[in-house]
């Protein structure tokens, strides 16, 4: 399979006025340039719940001037973006199509926070949801256990957010462009003990897109890995890591013929500070030191925490960031890398996709 990324674009992330199809079309046009697509895959977790817009794939294709082109929406929770990217690569690899436009998008800020939290909590198991456990509350239970087991300190968790905010200052399209300190994180309002507001990625609006092609483009997809796990946290083998991340990472590395040490840059799914730390360890990249700038460079665009987290867009935004890194278009954020790993989580670690990219 020689599937490449030929173009990439993203809108600004944040609280935006534009409606969802408009945001998605802006990113899609940017990624396509003067090319066309013969398949449109749009990743979006809950367009109808957040905005009332159903049938999003057709709404987007029409905005792009692609009415008549096959189009469909892909949903695996917050890993929808990577799922669409993987399916697009598989469609090309299977010889079914030549050019796939993958657009990830979400518009989350039109609803009150409590209502948006309720929609996102729909990703959890019915039994845990019935207790009032939200996504950050489940993350908080992981954090409590990780600190109890001395895998990290409260300061280590806060440092992951400090790192993300520092990187987002260099990214003009990021949602939260404001430096924070460990003290700021520890003093921010409590969400679910011990996680505080600044431990958690924001709810954002935004869209990102990549154009996949057969054999044309500066960035090659080197490996894909995907795994799932039990829906409920109570069903997991570990409370301080994600088996699905480990399995997806191993599958992607095996397909590419890489070892973890071959990864030169990584985009990790840091929806909560504890998930940032666990993910680096699950993928064999490193522990808390990653978030102090030591070892493999991570989340140079601010990650979910500070670039923003319009959930359906996130997996594609990671690909856009890596595309810019690998093509020397990341300006002040750029690191010296030819091989990148993207890690996108759906639910609380139970639908995980890992994508490996290489400059071609």
């Amino acid at each position, binding site marked *: 399979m020689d599937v490449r990324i030929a173009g990439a674009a993203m809108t600004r992330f944040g609280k935006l006025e534009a409606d969802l199809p408009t945001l998605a079309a802006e990113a899609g046009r940017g990624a396509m340039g003067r090319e066309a697509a013969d398949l449109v895959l749009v990743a979006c977790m809950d367009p109808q719940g957040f905005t009332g817009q159903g049938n999003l794939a057709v709404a987007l294709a029409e905005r792009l001037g692609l009415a008549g082109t096959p189009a469909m929406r892909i949903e695996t929770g917050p890993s929808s973006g990577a799922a669409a990217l993987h399916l697009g690569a598989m469609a090309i690899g299977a010889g079914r199509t030549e050019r796939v436009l993958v657009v990830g998008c979400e518009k989350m800020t039109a609803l009150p926070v409590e209502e948006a939290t309720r929609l996102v909590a729909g990703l959890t198991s019915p039994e845990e949801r019935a207790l009032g456990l939200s996504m950050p*509350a489940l993350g908080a239970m992981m954090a409590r256990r990780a600190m109890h087991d001395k895998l990290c300190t409260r300061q280590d968790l806060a440092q992951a957010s400090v790192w993300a905010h520092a990187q987002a200052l260099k990214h003009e399209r990021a949602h939260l462009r404001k430096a924070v300190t460990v003290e700021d994180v520890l003093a921010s309002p409590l969400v679910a003990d011990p996680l505080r507001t600044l431990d958690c990625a924001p709810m954002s609006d935004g869209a990102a897109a990549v154009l996949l092609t057969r054999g044309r483009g500066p960035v090659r997809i080197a490996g894909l890995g995907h795994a799932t796990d039990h829906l409920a946290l109570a069903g997991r083998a570990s409370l301080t890591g994600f088996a699905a991340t480990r399995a997806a990472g191993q599958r992607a590395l095996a397909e590419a013929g890489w070892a973890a040490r071959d990864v030169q840059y990584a985009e990790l799914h840091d929806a909560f500070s504890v998930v940032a730390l666990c993910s680096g360890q699950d993928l064999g990249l490193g522990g808390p030191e990653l978030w102090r700038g030591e070892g493999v460079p991570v989340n140079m665009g601010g990650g979910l925490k500070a670039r923003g987290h319009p959930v359906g867009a996130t997996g594609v935004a990671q690909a856009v960031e890596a595309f810019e890194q690998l093509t020397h278009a990341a300006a002040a954020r750029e690191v010296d890398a030819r091989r990148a790993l993207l890690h996108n989580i759906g639910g609380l670690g139970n639908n995980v996709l890992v994508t490996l990219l290489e400059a071609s």
Partner: protein
Amino acid sequence: MDAQVLTWTRIARPPAGFVAGRVVVLVQAGPGQRYAAWTAEAEPRIGQLVRLAQVGAGWEAQP
């Protein structure tokens, strides 16, 4: 097997429809028996396990 509280949280910002301040624990009640439970509404057996585990494991005080 002794009952254990594996972890817990106090939810300060809950989803719509829930009251802030609820404490939820994850309990290992026996081999292959894990439950998430709200301490104030847990069934009697789980509630007892939670109290025993709090004493035994030294977790921070629950309401």
